[in-house]
């Protein structure tokens, strides 16, 4: 089911605006993530899609049909709550049967549907148990099974894995992906965990302070962040301020505290003019440590090592430049020379790895 939000605003009380004029289109059959720090408005959006809360203004469409004023029951959705919201006084079977019974299905249909979802979530053995007799992971699966049983047009998941430990969380990620693959159901998934989003999503909307910042595939967001917030929120990055001094073919030359660097803009629309203030986003793994006598010409600069952190699969090295700018690099393969704190190193950056972004405050965000 295609889900469309048109200029959705949600205001609580007199002051708090939880969602600022949100426009969003979620394609049918996608696994769409709403990602953002806590308090960014992502759960509010999910609850408005579920019909548990009414937008202050704006419209919601399911497959082109407006549902803004419809009750949750009429929207035919499924929802998995953060705490699962399993009814403790009903068995697993009864929990799943509840929504089906309300839909006045025949007994055979109900039994068939329940057996199907129990099978899909590997819960058949636990049908007669009460939620209190199940482990956290099993409860999670019951919540999933219960929402799937009614074959909803869209499944809404509100931080479904946040109450599980790390190992179970991994397992459940795979489970949910498997169910998504086999049912093809449209899923909208709220989380603050960017690893969860990157590993599972077909598309992600990153939110901050009630604003939608950027929507795209995981790769898009990582490789082509459109502003410093996304660059910093999705993955790790170094943000360095600078001024545009020239344009050379598709590349832009920026004078920064790492010297004069060639870089690229994430899209035509965001191309800055000469003299503009910009922010450079450089991923820690993009830096190339040069040998003593190695020369690469442009995009090289030197800095002093201030700290080395050994992490097993890689080493994190912190540098400081002559004008006190700090940055961090990740080295996956230890290169020939020994590095010690205090060494002056030469580094190189591929222009494709230097992403030129508008300055932070251009978003109108208070960060």
């Amino acid at each position: 089911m295609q889900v469309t939000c048109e200029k959705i605003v949600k205001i609580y009380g007199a002051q708090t605006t939880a969602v600022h004029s949100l426009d969003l289109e979620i394609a049918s059959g996608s696994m769409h993530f709403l990602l953002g720090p806590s308090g960014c408005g992502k759960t509010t959006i999910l609850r408005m899609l579920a019909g548990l809360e009414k937008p202050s203004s704006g419209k919601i469409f399911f497959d082109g049909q407006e549902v803004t004023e419809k009750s949750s029951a009429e929207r035919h959705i499924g929802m998995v709550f953060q705490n699962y919201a399993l009814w403790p006084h009903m068995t697993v079977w009864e929990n799943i049967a509840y929504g089906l019974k309300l839909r006045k299905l025949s007994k055979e249909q109900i039994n068939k549907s329940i057996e199907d979802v129990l099978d899909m979530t590997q819960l058949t053995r636990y049908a007669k148990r009460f939620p209190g007799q199940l482990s956290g992971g099993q409860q999670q699966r019951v919540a999933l099974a219960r929402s799937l049983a009614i074959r909803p047009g869209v499944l809404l998941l509100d931080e479904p894995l946040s109450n599980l430990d790390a190992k179970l969380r991994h397992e459940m990620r795979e489970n949910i992906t498997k169910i998504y693959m086999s049912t093809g159901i449209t899923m909208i998934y709220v989380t603050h965990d960017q690893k969860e989003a990157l590993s599972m999503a077909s598309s992600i909307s990153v939110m901050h302070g009630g604003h939608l910042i950027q929507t795209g595939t995981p790769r898009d967001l990582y490789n082509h962040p459109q502003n410093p917030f996304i660059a910093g929120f999705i993955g790790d990055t170094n943000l360095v301020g600078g001024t545009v001094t020239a344009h050379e073919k598709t590349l832009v030359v920026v004078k920064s505290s790492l010297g004069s660097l060639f870089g690229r803009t994430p899209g035509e629309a965001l191309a800055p003019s000469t003299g503009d203030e910009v922010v450079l986003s450089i991923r820690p793994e993009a830096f190339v440590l040069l040998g003593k006598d190695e020369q690469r010409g442009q995009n090289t600069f030197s800095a002093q090592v201030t700290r080395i952190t050994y992490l097993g699969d890689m080493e994190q090295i912190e540098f400081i430049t002559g004008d006190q700018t700090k940055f961090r690099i990740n080295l996956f393969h230890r290169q020939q020379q020994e590095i010690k704190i205090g060494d002056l190193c030469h580094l190189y950056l591929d222009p494709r790895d230097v992403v030129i972004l508008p300055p932070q405050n251009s978003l109108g965000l208070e960060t």
Partner: protein
Amino acid sequence: MIKIPLKNGPNSERKKTSGLMMSRIIGYITMALMMALLLFFLVIPIGNIIVKAFYNGEAFTLQYFQLLFASSLQTESLINSLWIGCSTVIFATLLTVPLALINVCYEYPGKGLMSGLLLVPLVMPPFVGAIGFQRFFAKLGTVNLLLLDWGVITKPIDWLAEANMLWVVVILEVLHLYPILYLNISAALANVDPSMEEMAEISGAGRFRIFKDIAWPLARPGYFAGVIIVFIWAFTDLGTPLLVGFNETIPVRIFNMVTDINENPVGFALVFVVIVLTILLFLISKKMLGKHNYQMMAKGHVTKRSGQPHLGIVLGIYALIGGVVFFALIPHISVFLTSISGDWFMTPLPTSLTSEHYVAVFNQELSLIGIKNSFIFAGFSTFIDFLLGVLIAYVVTRKLIPLAGWLDSLVMIPLALPGIVLAFGYVVTYSNTFLDPMNNPVPLLIIAYAIRRLPYMVRAASAGLEQLSVSLEEASETFGASRIYTLRKITIPLVTANLIAGSLLCFSYAMLDVSDSLILAMKDRFYPITKAIYALFLEHGTGEFTASALGMIAMGILSLSIIGSSLLLGKKMGEIFRS
């Protein structure tokens, strides 16, 4: 350089074990104290009743039960009392479920005040209200005179006729006890995780179905916890039927039998029946409560969506709650009017006002003795409750000994134990011993007061201790402080509000205890305030007025302490009245 002595120095290993020993010692001493108290002042007296109900001094006998059930007076009393208990529960339920739903579903201006007002009747002793009730509904009382004036009736209605007495008692009980049920249901409904109801909403259930299928089943244990208390209180309340003169009830029968129990041992059989019924009910409710453990799930981050109702609904809520509170307070309003009335004859309201009844209270030895005695008895019993209650709550919440859970259950027994049974047991067990209530009932009165209010103290203290993070205590222990030092310096100061609240509750309920006081205090000079009110009420002439004035003073004391404790306890108030 200042040298800091090592508190946990070289012999820290020994310190550690002794710390553990210490907590065990505290645990077991508390357990032993509690067991001793229960043994001598609960198990033995009740065991004594049970034995005497079946043993005539020579052999096992069922004769007393035959006599009991052969007497139409006794069986009628039993049926009446059961009726009073059941009807009180039913009417209180009908009254409180809508009130609790309003409380949970709506957010309206003045909600705090309204919720508070609903609790007021709880602090008004029903037996005092009974005095005023009779004045209002007498043949030529306020209600009839008003109705005659308005032309609604032409002849006065005999509200207090023999046939209506049962319902008079039921009404007084409902008006007094509904807040207990209200607190329980509201708390239970508010505890239902909102996401549970939202999930049902998404599944397609309407508002009524959500209530029927989800909210009510989850709140039901809380409801039953309230029901059991309301039933037992109404079933065994002595003051109300005694003051309205409805003698065909179990408590009044028992009260009348105490004095000549040696000549008429049927009383043992009667009390035995009450004990069995109480235990039975208690077990049934425990079974209902314990069926599923609903507490295991993490609570969601979703907050309850309280609707903001239209003006019309708000006014409706005001009218409903105002009406309930007004009706509940009619008896007490009339007590107040009685206490200040100079002339009140054949008119709906007093024709002149006076303060002379209050002056009379302070000029009369009986009432002064009553006030003084009550302060002393209640003060001592509260002190006992405080010490024991804090210890027990501490041992239970911190699980200092393996059987801590048992201790918790033991303490709660007196909550369901009718005062009349306990007092009866004391009289039959300790007559002709050094504790003989005929000679000096003070020790037994204090113990009876203490034992029956101990659950309130334990609940109040546990509520505080459960919220207090254990790490605060552990932090103190890492500096080498002992358990007791930590308890004194860290724990108790942090739960002061709860402890004061619990003590106030214990104190005020002890002040207004009826059954123990009426039965155990046999001589004038040992009368507590409640028995003084009763004695004054029985006096001819101005007795009723002085009794009302003394009743007003008692209610004043009680209101002040309950308001104080609810301010300190806040929303935890509801949990105090759970069995």
